C-alpha cells in the first residue's frame, strides 16, 4: 500500500496466503478485514500493479508475487 492508503490501513506491506484467485477477490478480502480500506481501494484514481506492472480492471493472481495498490500519484 502506498501514500494515503497505508495511512488508512495502518500497514504498508502484508503477506497473504496465495489462495485468492483474482485481484477482485483480494480487494474483497481486504475490505472484509477493514471496510475503511475497502472504501479507499475503490476510491477515484486508485490503481493496482501486479509484480510492478499496472493492471486495468480485474486480473488473475496466479504466479503473482506482489500486488501494489497506489493512490493517485503526486509527482515529485
Amino acid at each position, binding site marked *: 500500500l*502506498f*501514500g*494515503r492508503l497505508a*495511512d488508512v490501513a495502518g500497514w504498508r506491506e502484508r503477506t497473504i496466503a496465495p489462495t485468492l484467485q483474482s485481484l477482485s477477490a483480494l480487494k474483497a478480502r481486504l475490505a472484509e478485514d477493514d471496510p475503511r480500506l475497502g472504501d479507499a481501494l475503490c476510491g477515484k484514481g486508485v490503481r493496482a*500493479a501486479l509484480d*510492478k506492472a499496472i493492471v486495468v480492471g480485474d486480473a488473475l493472481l496466479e504466479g503473482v508475487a506482489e500486488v*501494489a495498490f*497506489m*493512490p*493517485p*500519484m*503526486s*509527482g*515529485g
Partner: protein
Amino acid sequence: MDVRLQAEPFEPGALLSAFCAGRAETGAVVSFTGIARAETGAVTFLELEAYPGFTDAEIARIARAAAERFGVNDILIVHRIGKIAPSEAIVFVATASAHRRAAFEAADHLMDYLKSRAPFWKKEHGPDGARWIEPTEQDLADAARWG
C-alpha cells in the same frame, strides 16, 4: 542515461560537473535543480514515497521516450526520496545534446512529467500536522503542453 532515486542529499554542482565531463560531441548541457520550499514556515519537511523498481522504471521509460522525441544524447535524473528538509535539493535533471534547443526542451518536458505524473506520493509535514499532496492545476497544465 541514468535514473537514480536516493534518500541521501546530493550536491547539484557536483552532479553537473560530472555530467559535463568528457563530452566531445555534446554542444549543450541544460540542468534543472528543484529545491524544497519552506512555504514561510508552513512546511517543516517533505516526505516522498516511491515504489522501488516501479518508480525508477517508469521514469526511465519516460526519459528514453524524451531522448528520442527531442534528440538528446544523454539524460541524468536524480530524485530524492524519504524525508527532505526545506532548502535541500529534491530533484536534478540534466540533458545533453548537440545543440541547445533539444536540451532545453527535453529538460523542460521531463520536469513537467516529474512534477505531475511521476509515481511518487508526497506528504507535507508542518506545524499543523501532515497532509498528502496532489499535483496542482498548474502542474497539470504544464504537463498538458506536451500533448
